[in-house]
């Protein structure tokens, strides 16, 4: 059995008195797509920054293709491609110039440079835009350029921080397909963070959920969904619900949990979707409650996320995080 592509061993990050990452350990196998999920401020960006040598590790260690990121940072850097969340390609340079500059920064020999750029432009479907100034590209095209930029030195391991944030649905699907194809062609190991559960579900072989700097779950998407009590989710919206409605819904047959989401919306997890739905409608009719909407679906990663972190991700995205780690941690130990 080959060594893991990424090994994270009891890794800790402290900013002064605040511990952002509290001793997380996991391995990512060669050729795996590994998703890192967590609410804002959970510590996943700090984790990815430690693995990519961007910030010092307080305790523990991270190995990239067997190279310790502290002891052999350059060897680790040569083996990984990193795409930050922000679009950071130079808008004044052309697509090809952006790739060329990064190929030089990674020390790609001149003889290989042209071929590598050519292949990547084709792979990300930017061949005909090679001479276009990056500032003239759409968001999706720029993201594809960033992906090509991260692969210009043919790394084994690819880190992507929220690769589809800000993209329209069509561009998101294009990026997913591209990542799948690149993984297959190049045998890449991919570690990505995302806020989109459907993205994680579709792309990732395994998912780690991080909250409050700790690893709260790690498994395949299917196993994670199985780990949540209840096979189905009923979303029901009532007009003028009484205060005790949540308790009444909890008492329905096969219900494992009930969550009120405000505005009369309740999310009911159940092991028997059809039975609970029938009982819920009967309860509403009996009590004279008007149902504004009703839907039944299988358990999703959203439910997994809520189950493990105890909050809805979309709420977290609009609320300020409880702690914002300093972007440039001058005060780290």
């Amino acid at each position, binding site marked *: 059995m080959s060594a893991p592509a990424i090994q994270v061993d009891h890794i800790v990050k402290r900013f002064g008195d605040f511990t952002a990452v509290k001793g997380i350990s996991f391995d990512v196998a060669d050729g795996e797509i590994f998703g890192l999920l967590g609410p804002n401020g959970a510590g996943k960006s700090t984790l990815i*920054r430690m693995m*990519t*040598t*961007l*910030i*010092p590790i307080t305790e523990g260690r991270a190995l990239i293709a067997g190279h310790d990121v502290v002891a052999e940072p*350059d060897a680790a*850097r*040569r083996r*990984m491609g*990193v795409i*930050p969340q*922000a679009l*950071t390609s*130079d808008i*004044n*340079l052309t697509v090809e*110039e952006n790739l060329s*500059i*990064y190929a*030089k*920064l*990674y*020390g790609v020999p001149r003889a290989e440079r042209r071929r590598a750029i050519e292949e990547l432009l084709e792979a990300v479907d930017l061949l005909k835009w090679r001479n276009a*100034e990056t500032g003239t590209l759409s968001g999706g095209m720029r993201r594809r350029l960033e992906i090509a*930029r991260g692969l210009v030195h043919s790394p084994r391991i690819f880190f992507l921080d929220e690769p589809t944030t800000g993209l329209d649905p069509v561009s998101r699907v294009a990026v997913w397909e591209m990542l799948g194809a690149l993984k297959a062609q190049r045998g890449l190991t991919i570690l990505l963070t995302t806020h989109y559960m459907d993205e994680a579900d579709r792309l990732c072989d395994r998912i780690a959920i991080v909250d409050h700097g700790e690893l709260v779950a790690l498994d395949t998407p299917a196993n994670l969904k199985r780990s949540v009590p209840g096979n189905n989710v009923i979303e029901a919206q009532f007009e003028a619900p009484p205060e005790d409605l949540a308790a009444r819904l909890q008492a329905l047959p096969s219900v494992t949990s009930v969550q009120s989401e405000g505005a009369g919306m309740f999310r009911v997890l159940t092991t028997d979707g059809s039975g609970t739905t029938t009982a819920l409608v009967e309860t509403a009719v009996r009590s004279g409650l008007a149902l504004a909407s009703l839907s039944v679906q299988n358990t999703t990663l959203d439910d997994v996320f809520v189950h493990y972190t105890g909050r809805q991700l979309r709420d977290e995205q609009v609320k300020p995080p409880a702690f914002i780690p300093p*972007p*440039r*941690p*001058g005060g780290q130990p």
Partner: protein
Amino acid sequence: MNRMLAIIERELRKFFRSPALMLAAMVFPLVQLVILGNAFGGKITGARMGVVDYDGGPQALRVWEAFDSIAANVKTFKAVRYASDKQAAEDVRSGRLDAAVIIPPQFSRRVLEGQDPKLGLVVDNSDQFMSSSLESKMQEVVAALNQPKVMPRVVQSLSLDIVELYPFIDYMKYLLPGSITLAMFVSVMIGGGLLYIDDKARGVHEGFLVTPITKLELVFGLVASGAIKAVMAGFVITVLGSLMSGLGVIFHPVILLQLLLMIGATSFAFNAMMFLMMVRIEDPLVPRAMFGILNTLLFFPSGAIYPIHAFPVWLRALATVDPFTYAVHGFKSALLKQAGFHAILPDLLFLGALGLATLALATRLFKRTL
């Protein structure tokens, strides 16, 4: 080394794709050169001098003749007859006149009798430059009127022969070394300061930091690219400024070499100094807030627009450590005085040493991580 060159390539490609900022860096000092060069250093002409003649005698007539001569020749002022000294003083106060001369009653008799005759001059000393110019011109008039009609055979008074080493240097030429220095500094502020911090804030540096580039390659690449941009700005403004102010010395190969050395040393010193100031700054607003203060702190004490010897002691101390002082002095030596290499050597040494010291400190402070 190749990675350092990649950083330089990136910066220069960006520069040539978006030269608007750099153009602005050159246009501002050129505009300053033209406006200040023409606004200052000129002679007063067309002032209005009220004349209240209470005498009306032959000696007063000599005064009028002298004023007519001035109005017809150097045109410093034009005499306007006033009937009342009070009205003339009031008009000086209100700005309708620039000064007023009072010829008192019995002036001609006192002149002829040698009884300490006096002319009155009312000036608006809230404008020192205008009042001192008119006082000076009136002193000349009085000295001319005092000249005896028949000169003694042996002149007793001492005179001073002034030897001017250089042809007349107007204010625009005087200002040119400061304008070149300022253009380079503005280029450094934009290219080495603002863009550097903006790149940092946009996450561009994060992209660099995940590559195997070393700290030295990154720092030297950023400083070298900034210095190259400042050299280009300095060269362009030296040529344009020299042509605009009528200095042809730039076509002399030795002077040109001296100027290139000064431009190179100044660019290096300014960029390394700027990099040191920016090395730990993250907020893009900070350099924008700093630059106005920096301009004042560095440009004005340098002797670029006013002689250092006129400064109080504390300001002279500031001038001594101000790199602008050495840049301005070096450019002045080469452009205006053609004083040879030995004249610019101390400036080159100071700027080189400052560049090396600040670069070493900046490299030490530069963090290879976020």
